[in-house]
């Protein structure tokens, strides 16, 4: 909370981003204490890692300093404290914290906890809810992520036509930071391996496609930051990444179509194999793979788009300086 208030006060956007990452890490540890390990995992990877990075790249393009506000924020304060007052009035009706018989725990949750082992056959209930009971929801989320990736491409790649200047823009970080580069080279395969472990172990422990995708993308982003975009796109070329993003959504949707064709309902994995539990296993494995592919690819697309634009801008500035000299 102190961190949040510091964010309001600070006018240096670089410091704000650092504070936001710290806030992400803090809320991840908070989620662990509240028994939400899967969520903590995601928040640690996204809130403390990727979101800070994206903000930094954006700030590098838009400038670091925030202007002093000209108007006095009295009206805003009034609105905020009014809303806060209403909300505080509202919470007196809500059930107490951590009460076992609160209404939320008496709806569908007992069924998930008691029957998911027999129906789905995997220990991690969050994964069963995410990938089986509520597979249709999750499909919608994946499509939203995919659409967001497409939106970033549409917004940022409109101006990226001069490609030959890219080569010269490299070597900015290449020659420096020897320690970081060596450590990154050592860590890179292990991060990728860990991402795959998280991907395929999500049925038994905390993990799954969303976390794995973010971790995989984080490894590639780390590499890109240190070794430049052109080296990273030798392996993960733009077209390949875009193809993988679309293929992930397609993979997910085709599982639904397959269950329809095999006589079940949409995303009713029981139809996929001889026994229902085996069918559930196959279904969850395949759709988690689809989720992982899409999330990793979209995160890479977003970062690559930002990074490419930032490099171009840096190059343009350099050219301008040279001309003025």
């Amino acid at each position: 909370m102190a961190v949040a208030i510091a964010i309001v006060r600070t006018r240096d956007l670089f410091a704000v981003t650092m504070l936001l990452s710290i806030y992400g890490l803090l809320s991840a540890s908070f989620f662990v204490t509240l028994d939400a390990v899967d969520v903590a995992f995601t928040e640690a990877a996204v809130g403390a890692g990727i979101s800070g990075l994206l903000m930094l790249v954006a700030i590098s393009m838009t400038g670091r300093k925030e202007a002093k506000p000209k108007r006095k924020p009295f009206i805003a304060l009034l609105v905020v404290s009014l809303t806060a007052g209403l909300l505080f009035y509202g919470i007196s009706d809500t059930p107490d914290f951590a009460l076992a018989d609160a209404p939320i725990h008496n709806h569908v949750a007992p069924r998930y906890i008691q029957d998911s082992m027999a129906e789905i056959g995997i220990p991690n209930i969050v994964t069963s809810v995410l990938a089986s009971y509520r597979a249709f929801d999750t499909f919608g989320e994946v499509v939203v992520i995919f659409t967001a990736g497409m939106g970033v491409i549409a917004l940022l790649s409109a101006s990226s036509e001069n490609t030959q200047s890219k080569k010269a823009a490299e070597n900015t970080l290449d020659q420096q930071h020897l320690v970081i580069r060596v450590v990154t080279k050592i860590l890179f395969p292990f991060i990728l391996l860990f991402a795959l472990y998280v991907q395929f172990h999500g049925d038994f422990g905390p993990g799954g496609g969303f976390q794995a995708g973010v971790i995989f993308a984080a490894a590639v982003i780390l590499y890109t930051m240190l070794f430049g975009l052109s080296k990273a796109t030798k392996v993960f070329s733009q077209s390949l990444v875009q193809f993988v993003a679309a293929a992930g959504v397609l993979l997910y949707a085709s599982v639904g179509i397959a269950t329809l064709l095999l006589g079940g309902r949409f995303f009713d994995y029981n139809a996929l194999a001889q026994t229902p539990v085996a069918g559930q296993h196959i279904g969850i494995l395949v759709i988690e793979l689809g989720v992982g592919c899409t999330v990793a690819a979209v995160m890479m697309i977003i970062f690559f788009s930002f990074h490419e634009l930032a490099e171009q801008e840096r190059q343009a500035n350099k050219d301008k300086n040279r001309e003025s000299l």
Partner: protein
Amino acid sequence: MMGHFNSAVVIILMMVGLYIVIAQGNLIKKLVGLTLFQTSVFIFYISMANVEGGTAPILAQGITLYSNPLPHALILTAIVVGIATTAVGLSLVVRIKAAYGCIEEDEIEASEN
């Protein structure tokens, strides 16, 4: 009042986020405010899912009390969707910077008139 401690924390975080969105002119700062607001909603859901004496919702022998897995599944996906939409917002800010040369609300309005 102690029973609603979690809600109080959530409300304060949420209002801090809302204040940033309303009162501050810098567009990136506004996005940070939105992120704070979003996270307060996440914390609200997760704190609702918690059960006294319960444990993480991964089935194991000898444990009968688990926290509610449904909000966990919802928030897990919401976090990743949140970062994707934030990225769209950031790319809009970058385009605004390219078009207007600044990302302060007042200056943009001034250059419009």
